[in-house]
């Protein structure tokens, strides 16, 4: 059972308080997009063994969506941050890089 700190209300939330929302930072492809773009938007998800950026909602808490950077293998949590951003914060990326020198953001 994971613990993630909700960046909005500051609660260290138990997994039972949270709802997982899958991969973060997807670009919505709507009218005018190619079939391939649509496919990647709707279905094709990253499934890395390692660093992953995810969406979570503090559903049984403050109700806010947020982002989490997490290792899918060790379950280490690198940090949580606002859902209202297009990319992870620079400071978070460099702290991940410091811990996982071989990791490449894709």
């Amino acid at each position, binding site marked *: 059972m994971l*613990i993630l700190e909700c960046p909005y209300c500051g609660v260290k939330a138990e997994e039972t308080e949270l709802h997982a929302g899958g991969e973060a930072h997807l670009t919505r492809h709507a009218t005018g997009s190619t079939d391939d773009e*649509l496919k990647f938007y709707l279905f094709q998800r990253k499934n890395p063994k390692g660093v992953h950026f995810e969406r979570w909602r503090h559903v049984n808490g403050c109700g806010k*969506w947020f982002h989490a950077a997490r290792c899918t293998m060790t379950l*280490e949590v690198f940090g949580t941050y606002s859902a209202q951003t297009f990319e992870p914060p620079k400071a978070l990326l460099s702290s991940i890089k410091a811990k996982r020198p071989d990791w490449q953001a894709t």
Partner: protein
Amino acid sequence: MSTRIPNTGRFLDKTAPATFTFNGKSLGGYAGDTLASALLANDQMLMGRSFKYHRARGAVASGAEEPNALVNMGADDRFEPNQRVTTTELFDGLTAKSQNHWPSLNFDVGVINNYVARFLPAGFYYKTFMYPRAAWKHVFEPIIRKSAGLGQAPKARDADRYEHFYYFTDVLIVGGGIAGLQSALAAGQSGAKVLLLEQTANWGGRAPVDGAQIGGKSADEWVTETLAALQALPNVTIRARTMGAGVYDHGYALGYERITDHAPEMDAPRHRLWRIRAKQIITATGAIERPLSFAGNDIPGVMLAGGVRDYLINWGVAIGERTVVVTNNDDGYRTALTLHKAGLKVPAIIDARPNADGDLPNQARERGIAVREGRGIAKVKGGKRVLGVAICLQDGDGGAREEIACDCVAMSGGWSPVVHLWSHCGGKLNWIEEHAHFAPDPKRPPLGDTGEGFVVTSGTASGAMDTPEVLKDAHLAGKAAAKSAGFTPKRSQAPKATATTEAAMAPVWVMPKNATIELKAKMWLDYQNDVKVSDVQLAAREGYESVEHTKRYTTLGMATDQGKLSNINGLAVLSDALNQAIPQTGTTTFRPPYTPISLGAIAGEARGEIFQPLRRTPLHAWHEDAGAYMEPVGQWRRPYCYPRGAESHEDAVAREVTNTRNALGLLDASTLGKIIVKGPDAGKFLDMLYTNMMSTLKPGRCRYGLMCSENGFLMDDGVVARIDEDTFLCHTTSGGAENIHGWMEEWLQTEWWDWKVYVANVTEQLAQVAVVGPNARKVLEKMGGMDVSKEALTFMGWADGTIGGFDARVYRISFSGELSYEVAVPASQGRAFWDALHAAGAEFGAMAYGTEALHIMRAEKGFIMIGDETDGTVIPQDLGLHWAISKKKTDFLGKRAQQRSFMASTERWQLVGLETVDGSVLPDGAYALAEGMNANGQRNMQGRVTSTYHSPTLERGIAMGLVLHGPDRMGEVINFGRVDGTLIPAKIVDPVFYDKSGEKQDV
């Protein structure tokens, strides 16, 4: 025979005798006994029958690792199967029955399986019973179900209560032996909050039995002092009878406390599940002794050497008068010495090692006990109890035997650390050649949310085998955990303990080494699932190389004991058969819980009424008083119909439909989702959510809308009312309100966070009543307060005002095709308004109607229902709802997905109405048959029924369905299949069966 020795038993309270029954026979014991020790004290060696071969079985161990001795406990609403006698504390009035036999424990016809064992090899389920196919269902399965299985399933509802307990701690320590106690002391002295759990009722673990000396005192004295020291620390909590059941991600752990199992008269929950979040977890879980694999090692009276020692010292029970000890290590000698000291006979110690000249073997020799080196047991003699052993050379094939009469065999194959909790969450193991066991690798612990290890092992669980090492390791573990949890441990040393010297053990996986196949087929690895050495070797010969596959093929380690005794021996035999080293074979996965925990504890308080919260509308009590037959709709209960007297549900529904169509029906529509969407961008937002245009809706007007997922599929529908320029009220389906509210939040928070919109779910703030039928306007006008005339409140309009003095918002919308108003009033006034409607409506024929009447009336009108016409694979275009899909909007959720070629295909099944030729009702979900077969040899289909009812209005069966090219095939008759294989012909018709022009709702 097994018997009680006077003046012994460190756990017993002889002043508190207890009477219990086993298979109806009344027996005696004492407080402090386990059911196992009490049975053995009464010479009840035979405790059950094995799973597959129905062999006679007794206890082989003294603790949680026991595989054999499981019983049915209690009776009626306190009946529980598969209770382990070794972990069941005796109490006065306990009743137990042995299981898995027929007709009786002593005479069991199932034992025939034992004699046909060669026809029941590993994987026999997969090899047998394949053909003929029908025989499986009618012959094989019923026989297997009857003869296999362990205890009986309880029939009555559990009379006990259970609870969950949330606990947060810096350090959790599992195991109350000397290691756990020392770790708790070291961690507790740092000031860290410590929780120490022990699964049994007693502290100190094995050390007192093994005669450990700590700081010049006996282990018992040291345990008493250390417990007192811990109790004096306010930051340390200790709990006996509480097992650490599992370790999970990020320091989550489960404790399983058995509160009243030993004292059923206590007024308390029976079990308590501790849901623990710990910064650090110390596993001080000790070790489990391994059996040796020799023929007949499952006969009652063959027991682990440590267990024999435990029964004697802890419970004053001698398992036999003459005990042969068989061992591959020095620890087994402790049992021989203990028995000898108690005046019991040890005719021989069979040591598989070629030389045994360590300190302990020499002590045995000094006491005149015969030590037979390089020997093994060829075979145990006896059936329901041990009569003797035949001994042979360990290096031989079991020939050239010499017989020794005895009534107990104490076996020791060495000790394996209990690594379960360490492994549950990913801790890795190393193979330790010296002790022939797996031990935790401290460099590869389970990792927590910071990426650092959160579990440390302590004492024997780390692989430390002698008391001084154990205490030193435990002390360091306690300090390390406290430090990792952010505390500063005190500078202190572990207490000094007296060291003992043990010579090296020798791994022995099969005894004798070159045993014949006959002998191997009687060497039990997994007692509970009846897996033998020969089974694992057969699996290896048949190509099973992975230990995980072998486990499943042979069922080794798959029983309720999860292979606590069998796993290491089993994988050693497998490794040998595969000619590879043991670490190369590896272990199977350790999964929680450590031993089975009750389903009651897992459920906790969540049972009965509070299993799932029930949502009640403001009118719920009225429905119940009216005798409504309720149906679940999400977490709501809604009236399906209101039967009167002996009236059938069908008749009640027909009456309600007819009355609504002809006079006045009243429906509790409060469950309908109501979501306020407000803000300058509300219109723009709803244009994205709904397929049609909402931003053009005028205040005071309503519009029906559809919502699709981003994948294009229809997910919800409902009427949207524009309240003012900035405010909309969206009605959703009853079951969909929370999801749709969440859906709106998701888009607003994660995609369009710069749009100025707020949403609020106000479903429960309002009571809503549908006033339906030709007399609907009359009753509202009679109650008075606002103008609800055709001209003032037109169809698809809404208005605020008062009705009969109630603050009301009235929507002129219809889901039945009749003149209809939906009136929303504050929830607190809902019941009074409903009563007032009935009173005023009496003269107009007012009658409540339920959800089934609602469904029928909407189907008569051809209105779709989410969940009937949709199932997550249906798009609005399939349902002929093109009129509700905007062509002007460049974007809405699902629009792009609906442009995909297969979404636009004319081959998609389309909504039509269906009328059976004979007027009967089509079966729900029935498929329409087409010509030919598909690639799988199944009949081709051309459509299916989505809604089907008997229409009281039309007095015939009506249905809606999705049919290939349906709208182009009006009038065509197609065949639907019944479950029995017969066909029902039905004609494709327009889905609007009633009032096609819609004039009735617009009067």
